[in-house]
């Protein structure tokens, strides 16, 4: 027959102060982590209604595509500038040579 051994070491030995206990309780009960500037009330109503009426995935897809389009335009512009600089460097080297 096995016999239960008494615990020799309490791994969780910290005894909180009453203030800590009260604060931890409040933190657990009020874990309403929301921060950042909120839009005005009218705008909040519009946003909430939009949330109820919009298909999230389709809406996100549209936003990602718009953003991707912007990035592609930037990339194209960077590539054109890169091409221009390479041509100028080549011209300069040719003149030297």
């Amino acid at each position: 027959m096995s016999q239960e051994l008494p615990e020799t070491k309490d791994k969780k030995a910290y005894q909180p102060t009453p203030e800590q206990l009260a604060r931890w309780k409040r933190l657990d009960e009020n874990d309403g982590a929301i921060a950042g500037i909120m839009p005005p009330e009218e705008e909040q109503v519009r946003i909430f209604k939009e949330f109820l009426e919009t298909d999230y995935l389709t809406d996100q897809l549209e936003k990602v595509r718009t953003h991707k389009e912007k990035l592609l335009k930037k990339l194209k512009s960077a590539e054109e500038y890169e091409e221009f600089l390479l041509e100028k460097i080549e011209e300069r080297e040719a003149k030297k040579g």
Partner: protein
Amino acid sequence: MNEFSYIVGVTKEVGEGLALWNEKAREYVETYYQGLEQRARGTRFYRGVIKTRTITNSLPEIEEENIRSVFDDQNLLASIAIIQDTSILVEEELVNCIEIESIVNSPWNLIQYLVPERRKGAGTAIVEGIIKENREKGLSRILKLFAVPEEKIFYSDLGFTETDGSGEMILGESGAALLLNDLDQKRNSSTFD
């Protein structure tokens, strides 16, 4: 005490997590607020939906390196934050700090009704994660944010102090160290197991 895993950037899981937040939030509006905006208005859950929506509306344009999140033991996204480097005046000297531009918990961690997905402590965990990340990088642990008036008490309990009454709150170096110590003590006590 619930434990959370801390994630930097936007992973596939963060995207999936936000889609689930949207799905569950709509479900809660139907179940608890008869599908009506005005029934939910003024609640913490409502503010959470607004904040989440403002984040997701600009998510594709937010730099990935500015996004932090925590996941709970169910592997569910529990809280998300957008951060950026900034500086503040401390005793007439500009010091680097991290601004938490936005932070919001999952809808099940904000709604007043008890739902099975709820895991307490997500907000505390994401603030703790940001402090520890900066400590490991040897950067400033000073945090700044604008608290929603109704949630000021939460940030005060974490050690943040108000600056000028505008809602701006700061957690200084010593406050950050005290918070980490306090959370270690909480983990080492059996009170919230």
